[in-house]
């Protein structure tokens, strides 16, 4: 039995260690998502849940960049989501209405992300000086201010909300943006800037003293994180076809926080797992009615007590690590052995 398991494990490792594994998985996923939406392979309800899972993965992994990898404590992620949602919705409804919307949809989503990133740039500035609890308050205040600002903007419906969006968010689009965001966040993490982000979490002063330009690193992290929160907001708005400021209040931010810490800090795989479990569990428990909202936080508390770092907690699936980084040490050793042998 154990030998079977062992060889299965080895086989699995061989498959996942293959250079073509991730790309082919992505292509297969995209084809499937396209077919599922086009030919109704999946029940529309299941498709809807899958889309929520995707959007939540984008939200969780982008927040994980700040809270998990950088070790800050941002509690206002839904504020960025709101910026993206409103920006994209205004574009598709008011700026270019008409037949071409489905072509312009990716541009509108992109614009939502960019405007949100711009706002993220502003929120990053206080993070230069304050850390921990005080940064938490700054982001909290930011979330409240965004919500309050939208409530006072009659042009976008104020507290009544904004509607008129077509249902442009489809499974292939969600799949595309989810893969893109996870890929880019991973690339950031496994780069020079990503190592800077991690070193800030470990010891900001030491990081600065090791030549890391901490301000620059924080700016990049906040911009990337808020960009994808904005993307998620834009997708969310065009899935629901109706948004109002209360959807993006501190409770929404709390949901995202829970996904991140449930899945595990400092792990993209963790964010994917956390967002999936959170979304799916909420659906499965729907028959429990109000009590499901009692059970969920209870599960979170129990998980935190027994696994304070979440399910994955600083660990990563091997196939998420860029291959060149994964093999770096081995390549160096081989080269050195060759050099030693020849001399």
């Amino acid at each position: 039995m154990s030998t079977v398991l062992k060889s299965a494990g080895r086989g699995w490792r061989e498959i996942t260690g293959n250079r073509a594994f991730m790309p082919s998985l992505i292509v297969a996923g995209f084809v499937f998502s396209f077919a599922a939406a086009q030919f109704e392979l999946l029940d529309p309800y299941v498709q809807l849940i899958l889309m929520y899972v995707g959007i939540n993965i984008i939200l969780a992994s982008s927040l994980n960049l700040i809270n998990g990898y950088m070790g800050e404590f941002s509690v206002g992620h839904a504020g960025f989501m709101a910026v993206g949602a409103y920006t994209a919705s205004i574009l598709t409804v008011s700026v270019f209405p008409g037949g071409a919307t489905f072509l312009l949809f990716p541009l509108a989503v992109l614009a939502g992300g960019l405007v949100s990133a711009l706002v993220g740039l502003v929120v990053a500035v206080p993070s230069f000086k304050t850390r921990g609890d005080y940064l938490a308050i700054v982001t909290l205040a930011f979330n409240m201010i965004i919500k309050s600002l939208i409530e006072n903007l009659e042009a976008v419906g104020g507290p009544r909300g904004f509607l008129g969006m077509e249902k442009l968010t489809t499974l292939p689009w969600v799949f595309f943006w989810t893969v893109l965001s996870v890929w880019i966040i991973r690339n950031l993490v496994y780069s020079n800037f990503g190592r800077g982000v991690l070193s800030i979490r470990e010891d900001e002063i030491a990081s600065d003293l090791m030549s890391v330009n901490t301000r620059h690193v924080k700016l990049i992290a906040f911009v990337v994180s808020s960009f994808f929160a904005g993307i998620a907001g834009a997708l969310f708005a065009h899935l629901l076809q109706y948004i109002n400021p209360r959807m993006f209040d501190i409770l929404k931010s709390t949901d995202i926080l829970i996904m991140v810490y449930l899945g595990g800090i400092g792990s993209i795989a963790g964010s994917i797992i956390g967002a999936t479990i959170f979304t799916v569990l909420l659906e499965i428990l729907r028959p429990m009615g109000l009590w499901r909202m009692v059970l969920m936080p209870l599960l979170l508390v129990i998980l935190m007590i027994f696994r304070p770092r979440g399910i994955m907690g600083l660990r990563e699936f091997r196939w998420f690590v860029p291959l060149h980084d994964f093999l770096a040490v081995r390549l160096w050793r081989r080269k050195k052995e060759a050099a030693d042998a020849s001399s």
Partner: protein
Amino acid sequence: MTYLLQQALNALQLGSIYALIALGYTMVYGILTMINFAHGDLFMVGAFLCFVAATYLKLSFVPSLLLSMAGVALLGVVIEKWAYKPLRQAPRVSAIITALGVGIFLENFTLALCPYPKHIPPLIAHEMWSFGGVSISSLQILIILLSILLMILLDFIVRRTMVGMAMRAISWDKTIVPLMGVPVDRVISITFAIGTSLGGAAGVMYGLAYPVIDPYMGIMVGWKAFISAVVGGIGNIRGAMIGGFILGGVEILVAAFLPSTYRDFVAFAFLLVLLIFRPYGILGKPHPQKV
């Protein structure tokens, strides 16, 4: 002028409620350097316990208040023992997330038990007095005086008693104090009991002063009180009191001169501006990082 005085009175009422809740945040922070995000929901539980005491047990004001405070204190101690204590050695955010979880649990548990907003029966004989155009109700006097009384009591406990000295010692240095024979666990329990009972008292007063109570009432009030604690300098008890009154004042001022929808906006913008100029709050001190 009378208008301003009237508003000042309202600010004092709102501010004392914020201050009482802020004290709970600040005390727990001082001793555990942890933000107890469930605190706003304990405030809500206080209001609901008072509702139960007054409606079903037919108790009068003082027993209802005491029952609420005791109930919330007990709940606070139990939460600390079961949910926070196991995480004392864990990364700090884990404890914060746990606190968020406990808060959501309390909200939804209360919601599942009583899905509709409730109304606390009037426990205080309603009387109005007028001084040169400024009217003041018996309830307002009660809230303000009771809050001030509780704060003076707390200040006395923290500054003049052995328990208070132990609290201050633990917040000063967590590694040495246990070696001096201070029973850290018990002091933490007492801190939670006192801090949360103040929140419970605030819940009772809020429930009496404002028409309805609902399970989510603790969220916004809790965040505002938390801001008060930060404005005053988190971890600093007198700072929390000052912060509460400042925030109450700001909110009432905004409501007096601007549409009420701007209230939150201005409150939070105020917080941001203050943090730019005084990053550690009004009475807080920066903690220099040792290299």
